[in-house]
């Protein structure tokens, strides 16, 4: 029977009415809650519900267009030399910017065996101080000791990337993303692997990873920017 008919059916009485009312009201309250959270997510966190376009403010459209035109003119002057370089320089430069602009802090120091813990503390401290050679030495020792967990491999890969060892960064990070036992940092590893491929002049190999990131919300725009330049 249709729910709308069932709720008003005179034969629905006693325990059956009680059970139905509970389920019906729970469904309503769950839906209310989801609506409220969806609104907060959209307004405060910029996470849109599926199938909706970002909200636009009509009244400001003309100013946005004027701003966009002005920005384009300024950009044309600023980026003038770039138009005469090979497009390769564009995505290489953008990848460089993304590598440099937001250093990925290591806050993943673990407990465990004391020697390994010391190595990890040393590695993480060196990494955060951008002493990547020392970080690599310590992470390598953890790997050699057979005690490496996902975070060690991830930050080893990042240390190679920041150090400019792109080939080693690719080897480490691609091993990381292919390892199904590693649960943490998968998306981040894909992003940095894409940057490593670009820096290693293998942009085609970067594309699938960027496309994957572009589907999500984290670094979506950055991935799109790089894909645009790679086209």
């Amino acid at each position, binding site marked *: 029977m249709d729910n709308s008919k069932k*709720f008003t059916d005179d034969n629905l009485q006693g325990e059956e009415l009680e059970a139905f009312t509970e*389920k019906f009201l729970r469904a309503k309250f769950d839906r209310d809650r989801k609506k409220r959270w969806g609104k907060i997510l959209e307004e405060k966190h910029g996470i849109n519900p599926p199938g909706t376009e970002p909200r636009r403010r009509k009244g400001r459209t003309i100013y946005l267009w004027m701003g966009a035109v002005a920005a384009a003119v300024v950009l044309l002057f600023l980026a003038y030399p770039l138009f005469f370089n090979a497009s390769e320089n564009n995505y290489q430069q953008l990848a460089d910017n993304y590598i440099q602009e937001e250093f990925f802090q290591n806050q993943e120091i673990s407990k465990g065996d004391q020697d390994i813990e010391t190595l990890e503390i040393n590695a993480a401290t060196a990494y955060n101080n951008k002493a990547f050679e020392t970080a690599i030495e310590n992470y390598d020792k953890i790997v050699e000791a057979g005690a490496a967990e996902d975070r060690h491999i991830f930050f080893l890969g990042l240390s190679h990337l920041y150090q400019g060892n792109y080939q080693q960064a690719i080897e480490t990070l691609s091993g990381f993303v292919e390892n199904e036992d590693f649960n943490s940092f998968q998306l981040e590893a894909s992003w940095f692997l894409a940057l490593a491929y670009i820096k290693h002049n293998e942009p085609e190999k970067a594309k699938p990873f960027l496309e994957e990131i572009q589907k999500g919300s984290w670094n979506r725009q950055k991935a799109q920017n790089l894909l645009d330049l790679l086209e």
Partner: protein
Amino acid sequence: MEKRGPYIVTIEQFWRRFLPKLLSHLIKEYQFKKREADLVGQNVLDRLESKFSGNNSQPVQVFHEALTIIVTRETNKFRRLMDKNFGLSETSFNDMILKMRQGDESIFEVVFLSHFDFCLNYLQGKYKASYENAYDATMNAMVAFCKGLKDESITYGNLKFLFTQMAGQYYFKWIRREKIQEPMPEIDIPEEQDDFEEASLNILDKAWDLLGEGCQKLLENFYYNNSTLIEIAKKHEKSPTAMRKQKQRCIEKLRGYFKQMNH
């Protein structure tokens, strides 16, 4: 009387002098709240006492050297635990639960909605879920998580893991319409409610709006917030029997309005 050199102190003496500095350091450098800093301080003291259980009188320098490692380790351990629990310490978590039981979900919403993105990315990255499916599964997991926290079936420990696993389960169970292939005994997601058509829920919304505030609160508290009639009756200084009758009247009113709206 035991003869001591000028720099030898007991753990208690050392700790009395050192504790205020440690707390201040934890609050300033790590942005811990006072209660969290106290907990880390207690853990540090426990480790220190355990390390020097054989001889608790040592030169100050020895305690200092030991503390350099212990403080770093305990602080990191605490931060990792908080990280696993959406940045909440156990005390903050307990505060949040207490408020949720009183009907205030504001902390829950701030904490969990700010990690919605994380879970969304996790489902997309781990299971290659589409944005739409990942969004729905995360939302369903959040609703279930909220209930689980209130009824204490979910407790402090590794909330982040639990939340993402729960969202994963929803993804498999509801979105892909498949049976869970690897049941996880610790993660018990609620059975699906009967499917109610959107149209029926829309009518219910309209009927609900016609109910008085008293009936709305009574039905919501009883059917959604798991309050018993005895608790509700006590709050309103009425007998449970009177409350039961009032609840029945409210349901009949709601059914009446629903019938009106359905025509």
